[in-house]
């Protein structure tokens, strides 16, 4: 369960739903990830720029910039952060759309943590 590598995977959570994001952050930290969180698209872009996290968990629906916009901004920036899209839409279309825009993968809310961890590790491993 715990990751023994000296270097923890740094995960940034971008979601405006505080209860969700904070809980996810706590749980990821409990599982030996270095998780931080932001609650808007703009903040997410800034945080990626400054912290250069390994993986960004990006919610599609946020008040200022939505997930897809954040994606395109990151693409412009040439950020190396891998993006996993969190979507509440029960549609694989949006996920696909995101993946076409450069996201590594997508996962639907509510999120199964183990599944998410597999994806995070996959994403990190693909760097």
């Amino acid at each position, binding site marked *: 369960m715990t990751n023994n590598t000296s270097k923890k995977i740094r995960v940034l959570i971008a979601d405006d739903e505080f209860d969700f994001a904070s*809980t996810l952050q*706590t749980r990821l930290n*409990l599982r030996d990830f270095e998780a931080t969180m932001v609650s808007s698209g703009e903040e997410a872009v800034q945080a990626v720029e400054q912290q250069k996290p390994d993986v960004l968990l990006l919610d599609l629906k946020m008040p200022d910039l939505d997930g897809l916009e954040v994606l395109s901004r990151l693409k412009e920036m040439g950020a190396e952060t891998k993006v996993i899209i969190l979507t*509440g*839409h*029960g549609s694989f*279309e949006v996920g696909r759309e995101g993946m076409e825009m450069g996201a590594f993968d997508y996962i639907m*809310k*509510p999120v199964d943590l183990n599944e998410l961890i597999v994806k995070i590790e996959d994403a990190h491993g693909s760097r």
Partner: protein
Amino acid sequence: MKIADIILPNSLKGSIDLGLERRSYGRFKVILFLIMIAITAIPATTIAFLGYINYKNLLQKDEITQLKWQMDGSIGSIEQMVGSLKSVVQFIARKDRYTELTTGSSLEDLFDRLQRQYPSFADLGVIDEQGVQQAYYGSYDLEGTDYSGESWFSEVMEKGLHISPVYRGYRDVPHFAIAVSTYDPVIRKTWVMRATIEADTLQNFVGTIKTEATDDLFLVVSEGVLQTFSNYFGQPLTQTELEIEPGVRSYMSMAQEEFLIAIGDIAATPWYLVIIKNGYTSNSEWRSFRSELFILYVVCMVISVIVIFALVNMLTSLIRKADEIQIGMMKEAEHKDKLASIGRLASGVAHEINNPLAIINQKTGLVEDILNITPDFDHKHTVLESLKSIDNSVERCKAITHRLLGFARRTEVLYQHIDVNETIREVLKFLEKEMMYSRIELDLQLQDNLPNIYSDRLQIQQVLLNIINNAIDAIGKDGTISIISNLIAGEVRIVIQDDGSGIPEDMLSQIFEPFFTTKETGKGTGLGLSITYGLVKKLGGDITVRSNVGKGTAFTITLPVKVEKQ
């Protein structure tokens, strides 16, 4: 309820009750039929009737004209013939012969000579001013008879001429008499020459003018007593019922035959000429006209009835077909409408619920995580079990919200050229892991060089995803899914086949209906195949299903290579 509501069949009413009440096409058909028959029959009958009446009038007028003309000619002839007889008598009664004729046998000589020329003369008599017959030659001894009281004598004395009606004389032979008066300057007295002539003469006259065109022609006096033989009334001197009045009349016989009777006065005689002719009804021209008209009318009517019947049948079935199409379209629209509103409602609810679900899910996850690193305490096991149960419930809710959200996805079609095989492979990428977990083999038989179809890629992906997901669900664990693509009759066909549990026959017809599901409560929304069906139809394609319980199910999707843009 208005009267129109009762009379009009439902098929002519508005479409409010559409599909709810069976439209009464039978009654509509009958009404249409009757209206069309009336439209055809009324003018045809009117024309036939007017033609009939007009032709009848024309024939009648023509006949009357002809009869009058014949009448005038016949009267002229008879007057001429009577006139010549009268001239003979006037000739022999030359003014100064009174003395000569009343003496000796000169009257006898005269009669002999006369009879040689005119055999119908029966006798001659010379009557003096006082009305006493002074000389007589004939079959009887009538010399000395006093005629002064007779009306004819006063008439001849007054007018100079008298022609008597036919009478049966003393010899019981029909005769008539011509008497002329003349003034003798020698004796200075008026005297009268009276000649009796056999009625046969009249019969001969009549015989010469009677033609085939007439049915009866005879002479009669004003009292109606026959003067010559009549085909209808019999021998001369028979009393007839005829009302003698000059002119042309029509007359109905007992046998309902119409006759035309023309009566004309013959000048200076007591006689009237009567011509009887069968009416136009017995005219062959009329008869043939009538039967031709009748046949024509009947044929026209029969043809109209047949044509109208066929037309009405055709029209009714056309209307019925149109109605059926309309009902079908309305049902489809209704269905779409229903789906759309369900979709809106569902997506709203799903969105609202999904976020709290995600939070519950994370919170229970966190509690679980913390408990896992916490030393055991009383009831820890129970708490963990409860958390697990909350997780399961969240999973169920998740499945439902995801389905509901999928239901409300964008509906506009975005056309582009799509490689079907590539689309199948893309979709499979999303499902590979799941299939792997469930140990499901994939058998791909994709035909190379399939033409690109012009359609909506995302929607086709959605369709394929739904069907393949269903196949995975149907198999459960361990099985094979075959996906075949090929080009058939200008359309791309995709067959997705599983060797899962199969669908019972009685459910096959319902599987595309919304909210129909065989999955256990909470597992399916019953919308997946309904959505799929709607998408395929929207893209101009078709989807069919075959299934064998225990052997598997095959969905066949047919997509047109080109879609006519609507």
